[in-house]
C-alpha cells in the first residue's frame, strides 16, 4: 500500500473517532493533560500499525490501542502514583469543555443541586478501580456492545457483564452516603 492511500484511509477511518479516544483516555488517566499525550501517542501507534487493520470497526480498534498504550504507560511510570495523583488532578479536571448537558430547568437552586450531584457522580466514577471504570465508560458513555468491550479489554463477554454489574453496585455504594444528606 502506498503512503498517500494509507494516509487517506487513516484520516477517513480512524481520525473521526478522536473524541471517543480522548474521552476514554480522560477517564483512564483522570487528567486532561495526560489524556492528550496518551491519545497522541496511541494515534501515532495506530498509524504505524494501520497496515494490520483489516476489520470494519475502526473505533473499537483505536480504543484498544488507546487502552493498551495506557496500560504500558501506567505500569512503567504511574503504578504507585495514580492513587495519590487522583485527588488534586481530578478536582482540577476541567469539565467546562465537556459536552453540554442541555438543562431544560433553569431554576438556579435546582441547577446547583444537580451540579452538585453530577460532581459527586463524576468523582465516584473516577474513583472506581480501573477494571470497573473502563468497562463502565465504554458501555455507558461510548455505548459499545458487550462484544466490542470484550474485544477491547480482552476478556470473555460474561466477564464484561459481571464487571458492569459489580461496577454499578460499587458506584451506587460510593454515592449512597452522599445521597442521604439530600
Amino acid at each position, binding site marked *: 500500500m502506498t503512503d498517500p492511500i494509507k494516509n487517506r484511509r487513516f484520516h*477517513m477511518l480512524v481520525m*473521526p473517532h*478522536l473524541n471517543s479516544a480522548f474521552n476514554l483516555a*480522560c477517564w483512564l488517566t483522570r487528567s486532561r493533560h495526560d489524556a492528550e499525550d496518551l*491519545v497522541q501517542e496511541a494515534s501515532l501507534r495506530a498509524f504505524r500499525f494501520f497496515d494490520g487493520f483489516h476489520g470494519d470497526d475502526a473505533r473499537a480498534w483505536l480504543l484498544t490501542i488507546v487502552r493498551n498504550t495506557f496500560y504500558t504507560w501506567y505500569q512503567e511510570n504511574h503504578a504507585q502514583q495514580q492513587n495519590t495523583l487522583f485527588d488534586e488532578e481530578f478536582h482540577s479536571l476541567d469539565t467546562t469543555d*465537556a459536552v453540554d448537558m442541555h438543562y431544560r430547568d433553569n431554576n438556579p437552586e435546582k441547577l446547583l443541586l444537580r451540579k452538585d450531584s453530577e460532581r459527586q*457522580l463524576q468523582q465516584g466514577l473516577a474513583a472506581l478501580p480501573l477494571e470497573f471504570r473502563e468497562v463502565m465508560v465504554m458501555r455507558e458513555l461510548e455505548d459499545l456492545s*458487550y462484544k466490542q468491550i470484550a474485544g477491547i479489554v480482552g476478556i470473555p463477554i460474561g466477564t464484561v457483564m459481571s464487571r458492569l454489574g459489580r461496577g454499578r453496585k460499587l*458506584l*451506587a455504594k460510593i454515592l449512597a452516603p452522599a445521597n442521604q444528606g439530600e
Partner: protein
Amino acid sequence: MEHSEIMELLPAYVDQELGIAETLTVQRHLDSCPECRREYAEQSALSKRVRTETAYFKAPPDLAARIAAHIPDTLPQDKPRRISLPSFPASWGLSSNLSWLQVGTAMATLLVAVWSAGLYLNLPTADDRITEEAISNHVRSLQADHLTDVASTDQHTVKPWFNGKLNFAPTVIDLAPQGFVLEGGRLDYLDGHPVAALIYRRQKHPINLYIWPANGKDAGPKAESSRGYHVVHWTADEMHYWAVSDVEESELLKFSGILRLATHQ
C-alpha cells in the same frame, strides 16, 4: 434457572444484551422476585444516571492537527490528492531520433499515472455521491452548531414547521419510546433538492434523517459507511429517506426498521 443465576444476568438484561429466550426467563422471574426487581431497578437507574449526567470529554480542537503533524506526508482531509500527469519531454513528437527506450519509459510512466488515477477516481455511483454529500451535511450541521431550525420533541410542532418551506410534507414521528428521541427539524439541501432534515438522538449520538420526494420505486434499506459514519437509506411511498449518524450501524438499521414500520403501516 435459579435465582442466583438470574441475578448474574441482570446487568445484561438492563443492557438488552440477552437473547430472546434468556430475556423471557429473566422477565418471568422478575414478576415473582422482589429482590431481583430491586436489583434491576438499581442497576438501570445507575446506568441511566451515568449516561445522562457524566461528562463526555471531547478532544481539544488542536489535537487532530498535532497528530496529523506527526504523520508523514499528511493530506488535508476531504480533498482528494491532485494527480499530476508526468510531463512529457519537450522533444516528444518533434525529435527525429526518438528512441524506443524513451517511448517505453514514457508509456510506463503513463500507465502508472493512469493506474493510480484509477484508484482515486474510482467512478462514484449516484448513491456514493449522495452518501458523501449526506455525511458532509451531517458533519456541517454539528460543526456549525446549527442542528435544528425548529427545536422540539413534539412531532406536532415539527411537522407543521415545514409547511410553506417545502413543496412536500415529510412524515414526522417521535420514536422516544424506542430510544430515538426526536429533537427537531431543519431545512437542508441534498442531491440538488431542498430536503427536510429531522434530528433524532440516540443517547449522545445525533442522527440526521433527510427526506425528499422520489420518482422511483420503493427500495429496501441499504447501509453504507464512509469516514467513520454510517448511512442507511431507503425509498418508500415516493419518498427518499437517508439517515446519517456515528452510532453503530446495527443501531442505525434498527432506527430505519422502527421508522419504516411506523410510517408505512
